[in-house]
């Protein structure tokens, strides 16, 4: 039901992102989405990949500190108001969003995907499902 996001610690200095993506490139890891939260000294790179186990292993071997965090993936129609509809549901259910980011839907141009980090992803998924919106699972993300 939820998607596994890999969060990686990187220093906030020139070349550190590039060094990390080089590791992924070298091991043929395909990224679906990426977001970066930064502070003055360091950042957390959050990525959604096709193969979580592989990516986590190669990052660890390359000396990166990372964690795997469950996040919700929601497919929304790429039309005005698409995102708002989803957020309205979460808002009505009093669900707090810690962070979120979007990516466009790969092979199909009609959909965009939103990634949500919430405190209780089961509750959030249930609220969405009650309104007819299904969350995306790991397999579906891998096959985009």
């Amino acid at each position, binding site marked *: 039901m939820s998607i596994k*996001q890999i*969060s990686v*610690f*990187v*220093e906030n200095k020139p070349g*550190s992102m590039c060094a990390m993506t080089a590791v992924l490139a070298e091991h043929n890891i395909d990224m679906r989405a990426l977001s970066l*939260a930064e*502070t003055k*000294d*360091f950042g*957390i790179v*959050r990525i959604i990949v096709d193969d979580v186990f592989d990516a986590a292993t190669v990052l660890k071997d390359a*000396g*990166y*500190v*990372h*964690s795997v*965090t469950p996040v919700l993936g929601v497919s929304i129609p790429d039309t005005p108001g698409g995102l708002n509809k989803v957020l309205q549901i979460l808002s009505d259910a009093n669900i707090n969003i*810690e962070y979120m980011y979007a990516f466009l839907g790969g092979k199909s141009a009609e959909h965009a995907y939103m990634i949500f*980090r919430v405190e209780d992803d089961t509750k959030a998924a249930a609220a969405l499902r009650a309104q007819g919106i299904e969350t995306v699972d790991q397999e579906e993300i891998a096959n985009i």
Partner: protein
Amino acid sequence: MEKRYYQPEIETASQEQIKAWQDERLVKQVKHVWDNVPYYKKKMQEAGVTPEDIKGRDDLYKLPFVTKADLREAYPYGLMGKPLKDCVRIQSTSGTTGKRVVAFYTQHDIDLWEDCCARAIVAAGGTNEDVCQVSYGYGLFTGGPGLNGGSHKVGCLTIPTSSGNTERQIMFIQDLQATILCCTPSYAAYLGESMKEMGLTPDQIPLKAGIFGAEAWSEEMRRDIENTLGIKAYDIYGLTELSGPGVSFECEEQTGMHINEDHFIAEIIDPDTGEVLPEGATGELVFTAITKEAFPLLRYRTRDICRLTRKACSCGRTHVKMSKPMGRSDDMLIIRGVNVFPSQIETVLLNNGYAANYQIIVDRVNNTDTLDVQVEMTAEMFTDNLGKIDELQKKLVDDLRSMLGLSAKVTLVAPKSIVRSEGKAVRVIDKRKI
């Protein structure tokens, strides 16, 4: 644990016996120095002291100090007590600023030095059944040669790996079932970290004891090393100027290091006035070598800040104990007028669950000193939540402020980005001096 000593009659001698040895040897040593070391004789004359004024330990305070500056000025031969033809070895300090210190040894000096190291190994539970891996550097640095000699005297099977090549170190520990490890505490921590990464648990590591010295380390770091390696970690203290490791060593009580008083007289002085302080007071440690022939330093100021105690020790040893040095006055940083020892920063980090690998960067920005403590992010501390990391960072800043009495910046850096040291760790980068 069975109480064992390498030289029981010396190590458990009565206070009267120790004083008698010290009185007699000091008188003899002062005469030896007066007759053979013109540099020090001149200092004595300037202070208005002659060998006749020194009748025993209680007269020690009359003698002038020897400082690192004297060693530099007298470099290389000026403080020798024996002609070169009687000397068989030199050792040299591993990296103080300025000119290196070169110390000379007769065969007799080496013999006594190795006895001191053997006492430390036996105090750590070593016997001729043990396999002792010496991962201190061999060469000019005293760590390797000293413990190597001590290990031979105890009869341990000695593996002279020297420092470096971590993979090979671990291979020997595993394949040859090393039971005692001798190295710097920071290298012990690094070896532990590496073995943990290889998936080795403490019960899979054959080591039972470690003898770690040559740099400052805290109680927290000791616990850390003991837990990762599954050993008991013993502190050992020494200076090249006085011989090397083994001037003092820890027993199983782990509450301070017994000074080998049959060879060294210890005093604690006020570092500012030079006045001798009573037992139990904190101050600068001063040593007088009473048995050394080739490099007989009298009242050598170590710059180490510590305390002495003659409280009875449960191990049965009677020699005075010194506390772990709280810092060297050379290491002591003065930041915005506040005295800061790197060991205090280490304590805060370890108390908060961080690894012992850190670097302190001191700089001066707009005429104000800045203190930046760089800490490596660890898998245990990392979380996807920026707020939580922020809290951890704030907690470190708060704890540092209450420990040091001044505000420091904490920077989280990538794992393994701080250079690992195989000898003494480079903990402080003071850019104000550059």
